[in-house]
């Protein structure tokens, strides 16, 4: 698809020489002087466009060429319009050239929009647009008005202040006309649209619905005909921008006045009387009764009238979407219309709460119709939004909706990228509301994380925003386990899909061992736990190591690897959040989980190392925040630190555990720290240090990292400084160390520089410990040294000192 030819074309375009370019310009100017647009001219224009667009640095065209191109914009030949607009968009406007080309065609309008440099420019474009809307001249091609609405919509997106109150009123009126009162007869002829040209003997035919039956109500985007009239086209364009227009209203219109309140009461009474009488007719009727049951809205001002008509239009669309369309593309359109209609109803009801009682029966019926069909999942999300926004007011039970969104969708549609995107977006936008109204939200994280497990890279960004809301004190431990096992969940989802697509009978050694395990009843429980929909049934499984073994081959599946890469960042977010909400008891539990899980992870290259790194970082943070945790959990920490194997398998974590033990196992951190405790810790660490520095590392393991050795040495020294009886033992070891290394190399350290560093530290500690008092204040500094508050302490504050000095030196 992308060939060398294309690449070299682009290269040529970027590297064209200035002289060649000028010659090209002159040639083009000459060609454009001709009357007709020849093939050669078109070709040259196209090449000019390529030259200009191939580089991000703007080239400036000679003025004469620009002028010729500008005049082409108003040509009647569309090709001229297109090419000149495209070329001019890639270059700068002539200096001093005002925004004076009119918007007679869509391509000229495009140029105007792209060249608009300020709000004034946009305002003047707006004024021109409304001028043409008002005059409604029917000269010129049929579609001359149709680009007006899209251009307006584009400007609205950027600056709705360009519209004056009059403009808004005018457009609202026009939109009402086009949406509600478009012709209900088919237009004659195919391509030109417009009015009945040709045989006058042809009887006007009414429009039809998508299933072929004759339409019984006003024209909408879901109506078809042989040809279309102009206002029917405008109906399509109007509906296409309707939602955006209504949303803009909401931001522009000011707060409620007494006027509005009165209107609210009026429409409330109207809608109440209607809803009790006619609800049965609105639900499930084949022939549309929407317009028949609508309130007389001629009393309402333009904005409110538009709102009312929008309401009716959407109700009609919802009813029309129930018909079986003859074409597949129309079925897709029906779904899109449902989404749009529900969204518009939602925003209309937000603006005017009285409409909720009219809208809800319709939405509820729609929900009932669609909730069992997963192919309508994306339509059900806007419905869920409606329920969330208005369910409380209408006192409707929303449980069935949440069951669908939080339970069924993630379970069955985790591999639908569009649904994942929209559902997670729905969660992100409504987070506060959901946490208030849907208590089961925080329990659903096992299910929601399936989206992440399936397609980590695509949705990790959403989870960065969502994860903090899922961290609660009740679920924190289980959440931590779940996050650590996300790669296993990823593998399980892959197996689940594969299991459904491959027949069970297919065996003979070709199927994967993990797939067999997935299908075997004895391991079913493990996988079912991972696939659970709600938290609360247990923190993790006991046979985790079995699970990891069964999934060994999944460790190099790309999907699993991609998922594993998202886990570290989520763990960071988890810890950062949990620190804010957790009490000491929970933090202690989390430390234990970290220690326990450091050896219980799916064996993906680099994954284990990364997780260890995250653990180390947060272990440190937790202990720094609550130093007494070290004494609390001293038993488990000592158990961990006393296992020599950990030096080789979990170097990162081990180093940090040793460090926190050395740093925080002291009376100043927790008064329960006894001499016995310090001594037993000392002995455990001493044993390990002896072991790793007296013999070669076990087969298969490399030398212990120098950092581990120095950490152990420092920790021992710190502990000794708190219990002076231990000092002789440390000093003995340190002097032995010095002697041993004097022979040159040792079996436990291959690098000479590392050995020198270790020995140097040993000597420093040894000399420090010769004066126990000094050692104590250096190695176990009192808190006011480690957390200086000199800038806060009025006695030593810098400003005070400066003031004192100043007053001394300026004593006059």
């Amino acid at each position, binding site marked *: 698809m992308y060939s060398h030819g*294309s690449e070299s074309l682009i290269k040529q375009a970027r590297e064209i020489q200035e002289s060649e370019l000028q010659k090209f310009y002159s040639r083009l100017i000459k060609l454009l002087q001709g009357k007709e647009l020849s093939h050669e001219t078109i070709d040259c224009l196209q090449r000019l466009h390529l030259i200009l667009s191939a580089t991000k640095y703007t080239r400036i065209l000679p003025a004469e060429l620009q002028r010729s191109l500008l005049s082409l914009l108003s040509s009647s030949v569309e090709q001229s319009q*297109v090419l000149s607009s495209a070329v001019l968009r*890639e270059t700068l406007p002539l200096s001093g050239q005002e925004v004076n080309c009119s918007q007679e065609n869509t391509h000229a309008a495009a140029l105007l929009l792209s060249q608009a440099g300020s709000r004034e420019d946009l305002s003047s474009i707006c004024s021109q647009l409304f001028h043409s809307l008002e005059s409604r001249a029917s000269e010129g091609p049929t579609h001359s008005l149709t680009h007006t609405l899209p251009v307006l919509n584009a400007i609205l997106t950027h600056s709705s202040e360009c519209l004056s109150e009059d403009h808004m009123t005018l457009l609202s009126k026009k939109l009402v006309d086009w949406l509600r009162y478009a012709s209900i007869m088919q237009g004659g002829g195919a391509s030109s649209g417009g009015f009945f040209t040709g045989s006058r003997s042809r009887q006007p035919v009414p429009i039809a619905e998508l299933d072929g039956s004759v339409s019984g109500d006003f024209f909408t985007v879901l109506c078809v005909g042989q040809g279309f009239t102009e206002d029917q086209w405008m109906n399509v364009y109007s509906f296409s921008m309707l939602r955006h227009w209504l949303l803009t209203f909401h931001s522009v219109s000011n707060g409620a006045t007494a006027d509005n309140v009165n209107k609210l009461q009026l429409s409330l009474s109207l809608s109440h009387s209607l809803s009790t009488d006619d609800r049965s007719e609105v639900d499930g009727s084949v022939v549309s009764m929407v317009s028949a049951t609508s309130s007389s809205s001629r009393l309402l001002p333009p904005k409110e009238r538009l709102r009312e008509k929008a309401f009716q239009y959407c109700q009609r669309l919802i009813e029309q979407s129930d018909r079986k369309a003859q074409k597949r593309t129309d079925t897709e359109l029906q779904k899109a219309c449902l989404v749009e209609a529900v969204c518009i109803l939602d925003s209309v009801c937000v603006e005017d709460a009285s409409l909720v009682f009219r809208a809800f029966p319709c939405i509820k019926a729609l929900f009932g119709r669609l909730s069992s069909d997963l192919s309508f999942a994306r339509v059900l999300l806007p419905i869920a939004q409606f329920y969330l926004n208005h369910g409380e007011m209408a006192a409707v039970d929303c449980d069935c909706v949440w069951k669908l969104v939080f339970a069924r969708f993630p379970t069955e549609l985790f591999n639908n990228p569009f649904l994942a995107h929209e559902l997670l977006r729905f969660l992100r936008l409504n987070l506060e509301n959901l946490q208030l109204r849907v208590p089961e939200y925080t329990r659903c994280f096992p299910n929601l994380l399936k989206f992440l497990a399936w397609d980590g890279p695509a949705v990790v960004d959403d989870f960065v925003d969502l994860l903090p809301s899922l961290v609660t004190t009740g679920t924190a431990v289980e959440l931590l386990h779940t996050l650590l096992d996300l790669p296993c969940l990823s593998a399980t989802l892959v197996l689940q899909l594969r299991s459904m697509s491959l027949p069970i009978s297919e065996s003979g050694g070709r199927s994967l061992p993990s797939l067999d395990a997935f299908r075997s009843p004895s391991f079913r429980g493990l996988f079912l736990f991972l696939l659970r929909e709600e938290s609360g049934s247990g923190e993790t499984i006991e046979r985790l190591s079995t699970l990891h073994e069964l999934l060994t081959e999944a460790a190099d599946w790309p999907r699993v690897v991609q998922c594993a890469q998202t886990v570290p960042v989520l763990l960071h977010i988890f810890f950062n959040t949990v620190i804010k909400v957790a009490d000491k008891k929970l933090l202690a539990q989390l430390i234990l989980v970290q220690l326990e899980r450091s050896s219980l992870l799916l064996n993906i290259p680099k994954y284990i190392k990364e997780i260890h790194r995250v653990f180390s970082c947060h272990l440190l943070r937790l202990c720094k925040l609550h130093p007494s945790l070290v004494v609390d959990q001293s038993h488990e920490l000592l158990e961990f630190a006393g296992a020599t194997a950990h030096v080789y398998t979990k170097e990162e974590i081990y180093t940090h555990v040793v460090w926190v033990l050395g740093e925080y196992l002291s009376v100043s951190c927790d008064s329960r720290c006894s001499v016995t405790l310090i001594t037993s810790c000392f002995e455990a660490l001493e044993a390990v240090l002896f072991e790793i520095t007296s013999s070669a590392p076990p087969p298969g393991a490399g030398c212990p990292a120098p950092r581990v050795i120095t950490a152990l040495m420092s920790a021992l020294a710190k502990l000794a400084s708190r219990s002076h009886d231990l000092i002789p033992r440390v000093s003995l070891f340190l002097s032995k160390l010095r002697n041993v290394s004097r022979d040159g190399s040792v079996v436990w350290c291959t690098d000479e520089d590392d050995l020198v560093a270790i020995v140097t530290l040993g000597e420093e500690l040894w000399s420090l410990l010769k004066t126990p008092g000094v050692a104590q204040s250096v190695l176990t500094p009192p808190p006011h040294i480690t957390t200086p508050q000199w800038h806060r302490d009025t006695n030593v504050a810098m400003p005070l000192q400066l003031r004192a000095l100043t007053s001394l030196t300026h004593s006059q």
Partner: protein
Amino acid sequence: MVRCFLIHTVCPVPALGPGESRVLYSRVFGPDESVLPGQQRQLSPEERRLLSAEKLAVVARQVRSAVSLCREASGRLLVEAVPGEEALALQEADGGVMRLRAGDPFSEETSALWLAVQSLAFVMVCEPHENLLLAEGTLRNLSRHCLEHLHMLAPGSEVLLKSNRIDVLLSRLLPHGQLLFLNHRFAQSLEKEVSAYMSK
């Protein structure tokens, strides 16, 4: 509203670095977002264009990486389709959507819908409240027309040399970035106009 429509490479391009992408067609709709009220400083037209081009390059890079991750994860083999097999190529195409955070690169949050057909990707960047169901359908439709009318499955360079055809296609099916609710009759009518233009 759709902010922009792009066609760019997702295959390795020799002249570029590994994650980089060549943008073959780009069209930004509506006024430049630096014209928004409240932006710190006014940019000159040149600066605006430069900034716009760089934003599109960022989008292309991100989509490229999303496409390669998606393809890697699914593990499906890429089947080369030949001219005439446009429908098949579309059926086999990978599709997805990614969230572009506010500031990265557009000043407000946007969603980038992408459709990767072999070595090229068609991208539509939408505003967050856009009807993504409609956008997805429109993107597929646009891609199909581009593949057919510009013979993109063949090794030619029509996408570069006949970009005015894409402009016309967009002016009908996505005028100024406006997504349209077109039933098959309306679509037919517009597509007839487009075909009439292409045949000239």
